[in-house]
C-alpha cells in the first residue's frame, strides 16, 4: 500500500482535501497534478531529506514521494541548522526536497536538490510507485541532537489501517506539525478518511480555532498543552468537533474536565503514543491514566506490559530502529519498546508518575536533565546541580533545578549573593538553550544526595 493509493475509494479519487490558511488542495487533483513535476523522477530510489517550511507543501510532497523515494526524512522547520550534517550522514541522504543547506561540505554529499512548488502547478500522466519508502522521523536526544527513527507506512498506519471508516464527512485537524509523530498520525488518518485542515505557525490560537470551525472540522488532536491554550482562549466555542484527541503528553484530570465542560457533546479521547513505540492505547472514559484492564485488551495487534514500573509496548506500530552508526536498539530482546514512562497502580487504574531517567516533557518538548545540568555546572560558582520536573498546569511540567554552590575558599574571591547567582545561572541557561529548557525555579541547597554507585540520586516523579 502506498500513501497515494490510501486516498482512493475503490479505485476512485477521494472527495477530500488538504487545506492551509490560503490554499485548498483537492486530493483527487493529485491524480493528475504535481508540486514536484519532472523533478519527482530524479528522486526515484533516492534517500531524500524533506525540509520545507510550509506544512501544505510538505503534505503534497509526501503523497508524491511515497513509493518513489527509497527513504524520506521528515525535518521539522525548527530543526537547528547545526544538526543537518548529522541528519544527512545518519540517514545516508543523497537528495533534498526544499532548501539546500548552505554549508559547501554538506552540499557535496547531496547529489540532487529539488524545490517543490507551493501549488500543484505541474501536470503528470500517472503515478508510478516502485519503492517501499522508508519514513524517518526526528525526535530529540539527550544532548539536544536529534535521533532518527525509522518507520514504514505500514508501521505508521498500523493503529488504524484495519479500522472501519467513519460514516459521514470527516474533517481532521491537528495543532501538531504533520512532520512530528502525533501530527503525522492525524495526516495519515485524514488522507484515508476525508480531509485535513493544517495549522500554520503564523496563526494565533484564536485564528486557528475560528478557521477550524469555519472549515467544519469534526476530529481534532493536540497535546494537553495545546488544549489548555484552547481553554484559555475564550473562543473554544467557535468550533464544534465530534471528536477531540489528546496525545504526546500525559493528559491530567483538569484538562479532561475542562474540555468536557467546554465541549459537553464531544467524544474526548486521550491516546498514549510515542515516535518509537507507536500508538499504544486510547482511553475514552475522560479519566486521567488508564484502566488496568487495558493491559490485557489494548487496541488490535498491540501488546502491553509493565516491567520495572515502566510501560512497554510491542506492536506492528513500533519503529523499526534508530539510524546512525552508534545508535542504541529501540526494542529489547523480547521485542518490546520501553516507553520510559513510569506508572503506578491504584484501585485498578494506572497513573503516569514521571519518566525514567528524569526526562521532562515541557508542553510536548523533551528536556534531558543532564543537558541542563551541564550548562548550570559550567557556572564558576556551581559545584553541582540536579534538574527535575515540576508538575505544571499550563505545560504539564516545567524544569526546576537544585544547585550546590562552591564555598569561598582559595582564590575565587567573594561569592556573589544568592539572588544574583540565580539570575546569572538563568541567563547562562537562556544563552545556551531554548527557553523551555531554562529552569523556571532555582533552589540553592547545601548538598545533593549521591548514591553508593556515585551517581546523583534522582527520585523525581
Amino acid at each position: 500500500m502506498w500513501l497515494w493509493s490510501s486516498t482512493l475509494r475503490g479505485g476512485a479519487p477521494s472527495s477530500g482535501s488538504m487545506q492551509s490558511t490560503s490554499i485548498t488542495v483537492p486530493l483527487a487533483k493529485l491524480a493528475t497534478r504535481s508540486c514536484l513535476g519532472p523533478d519527482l523522477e530524479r528522486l526515484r530510489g533516492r534517500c531524500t531529506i524533506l525540509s520545507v517550511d510550509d506544512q501544505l507543501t510538505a503534505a503534497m510532497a509526501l503523497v508524491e514521494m511515497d513509493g518513489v523515494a527509497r527513504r524520506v526524512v521528515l525535518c521539522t522547520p525548527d530543526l537547528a541548522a547545526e544538526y543537518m550534517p548529522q541528519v544527512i550522514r545518519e540517514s545516508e541522504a543523497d537528495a533534498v526536497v526544499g532548501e539546500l543547506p548552505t554549508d559547501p561540505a554538506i552540499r557535496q554529499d547531496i547529489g540532487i536538490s529539488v524545490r517543490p512548488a507551493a501549488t500543484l502547478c505541474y501536470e503528470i500522466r500517472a503515478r508510478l510507485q516502485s519503492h517501499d519508502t522508508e519514513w524517518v522521523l526526528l525526535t530529540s536526544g539527550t544532548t539536544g541532537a536529534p535521533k532518527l527513527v525509522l518507520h514504514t507506512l505500514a508501521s505508521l498506519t498500523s493503529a488504524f489501517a484495519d479500522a472501519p471508516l467513519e460514516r459521514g464527512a470527516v474533517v481532521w485537524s491537528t495543532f501538531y506539525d504533520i512532520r512530528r509523530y502525533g501530527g503525522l498520525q492525524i495526516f495519515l488518518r485524514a488522507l484515508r478518511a476525508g480531509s485535513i485542515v493544517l495549522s500554520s505557525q503564523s496563526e494565533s490560537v484564536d485564528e486557528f480555532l475560528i478557521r477550524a470551525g469555519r472549515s467544519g472540522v469534526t476530529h481534532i488532536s493536540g497535546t494537553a498543552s495545546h488544549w489548555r491554550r484552547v481553554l484559555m482562549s475564550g473562543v473554544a466555542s467557535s468550533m464544534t468537533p465530534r471528536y477531540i484527541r489528546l496525545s504526546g503528553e500525559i493528559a491530567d484530570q483538569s484538562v479532561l474536565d475542562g474540555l468536557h465542560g467546554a465541549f459537553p457533546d464531544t467524544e474526548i479521547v486521550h491516546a498514549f503514543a510515542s515516535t518509537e513505540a507507536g500508538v499504544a492505547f486510547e482511553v475514552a472514559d475522560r479519566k486521567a491514566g488508564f484502566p488496568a484492564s487495558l493491559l490485557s485488551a489494548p487496541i488490535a495487534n498491540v501488546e502491553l506490559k509493565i516491567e520495572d514500573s515502566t510501560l512497554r509496548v510491542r506492536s506492528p506500530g513500533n519503529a523499526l530502529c534508530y539510524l546512525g552508526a552508534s545508535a542504541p536498539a529501540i526494542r529489547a530482546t523480547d521485542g518490546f519498546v520501553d516507553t520510559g514512562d513510569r506508572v503506578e497502580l491504584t484501585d485498578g487504574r494506572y497513573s503516569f508518575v514521571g519518566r525514567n531517567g528524569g526526562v521532562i516533557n515541557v508542553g510536548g518538548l523533551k528536556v534531558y536533565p543532564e543537558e541542563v545540568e551541564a550548562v548550570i555546572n559550567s557556572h564558576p560558582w556551581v559545584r553541582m546541580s540536579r534538574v527535575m520536573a515540576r508538575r505544571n498546569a499550563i505545560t504539564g511540567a516545567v524544569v526546576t533545578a537544585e544547585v550546590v554552590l562552591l564555598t569561598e575558599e582559595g582564590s575565587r574571591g567573594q561569592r556573589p549573593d544568592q539572588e544574583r547567582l540565580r539570575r546569572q545561572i538563568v541567563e547562562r541557561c537562556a544563552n545556551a538553550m531554548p527557553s523551555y529548557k531554562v529552569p523556571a525555579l532555582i533552589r540553592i541547597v547545601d548538598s545533593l544526595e549521591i548514591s553508593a554507585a556515585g551517581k546523583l540520586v534522582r527520585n523525581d516523579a
Partner: protein
Amino acid sequence: MSVRSTIASLFQEVADQQHRKLAPLSDDLKLLQSGLDSLSFALIVARLEDSLGFDPFDAVDRFPVTFGDFVKLYEIPRG
C-alpha cells in the same frame, strides 16, 4: 503587596525574561493577547506556587481566559 500586584509584577518579570512585550494589564485583557506564550504562563504559575504556596489549577472549574479571571483564581482563599 496584594495578590494582584504580585501577579502583575510577575507578568512583567517573566515578559522581560522571555523578551516579550507585555500588553497593558487590565481585568478584561485576554491572556492569549497579553503577549505571553504558554511557557511564560507556565513560569508564572510555577513561581506563584512557590511564593503563595498553592496551585489553584488543582481544582479549577474553568480555565482563566482574561487577566481578571487569572487574578481571581489566586484571590479566592483555599478551603
